């Protein structure tokens, strides 16, 4: 196996770990901003897995690249949306977490 190829796989593995870390954060935290951070980290993990796995053994693949770009845009849109809702929520209730979570 050439270094580049295993490099792809390394990133896939990192993606797996990132996803796991993000998941942990997503569940363990109650602060909504942290959860959003965690969500973004999870997303990054998923993108890494997508590209890393796809390219491992096959070389550069533009399709997952396009998918990841789409994914990033979707993620930022979601994050932005979440922040909008969050800020409105915070303004309304003064809380940074969700009421049922305590």
């Amino acid at each position, binding site marked *: 196996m050439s270094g580049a190829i295993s490099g792809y*796989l390394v990133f*896939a*593995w990192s993606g*797996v*770990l990132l*996803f*796991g*870390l993000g*998941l*942990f*954060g*997503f*569940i*363990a935290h109650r602060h909504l901003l942290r959860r959003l951070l965690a969500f973004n980290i999870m997303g990054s993990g998923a993108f890494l*897995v997508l590209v890393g*796995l796809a390219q491992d*053994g*096959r*070389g*550069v*693949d*533009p*399709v997952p*690249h*396009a*998918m990841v*770009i*789409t994914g*990033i*845009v*979707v993620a*930022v*849109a*979601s994050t*932005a*949306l979440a*922040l*909008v*809702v969050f*800020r*409105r929520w915070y*303004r*309304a209730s003064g809380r940074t977490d969700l009421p049922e979570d305590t």
Partner: protein
Amino acid sequence: MILRAILAGLLSLGVIVALGWAVLERPAPVENLPERVASAMPESGVEHPITAVLLNFRSYDTLLEIAVLLLAVVVALALREAQPDRPEQMGLDNPLLRSVMAWLLPLILVVAGFLLWAGSYQPGGAFQAGSVLAAAGVLLRLAGAHLGWLDNAALLRAGLALGLLTFIGIGMVVMLPGVPFLTYPEAHAGTLILAIELTLTLSIGLTLLSLFRLNPPYADDPDDARTQGGPKP
């Protein structure tokens, strides 16, 4: 809380293990999509494969993706109207930043244009350019610059809508000869894609900027909120 953390830890550990297992056991793929992309590249109208995938082969995904972005803005608009803020008062109003901005802004615009233009044959494209544009907007805002035309709701919304409308419109117009949606004729594919990218860049930039701008400002006082609140029925 502890319990929750333990649970979360166990769960993520499980997911990691499962994923690791899946990665290890993964079979060798049968389908070779890059090859298909490569062979279809000549018909795509662009030279950069990623742009081809994004705006030709899988342009439908991109179309929906723009919709997602737009959606976020719609929600932000809706919420702002539902919980009216006073006009923004934001900005550090820092003279240094302003003067830096005066330098930086043309540069950013140039970069954005380059990214857009470059997108057809090398890395870059509408998203990158759009986000650079948005970054400029954000900086301006942080600098306390008042972008008057952004307060013109109709104009702003037109700008927001432009990209997606153009996208759909072109997708529809090309159907006239009796081909499916989004089938660009080979001869004009490049031009059409560029047109789409151009409008998309603008829209994406505006969208991202709007997302930033539509958040509640740092400070507002109740009086203002009452008197200057959005159009209540």
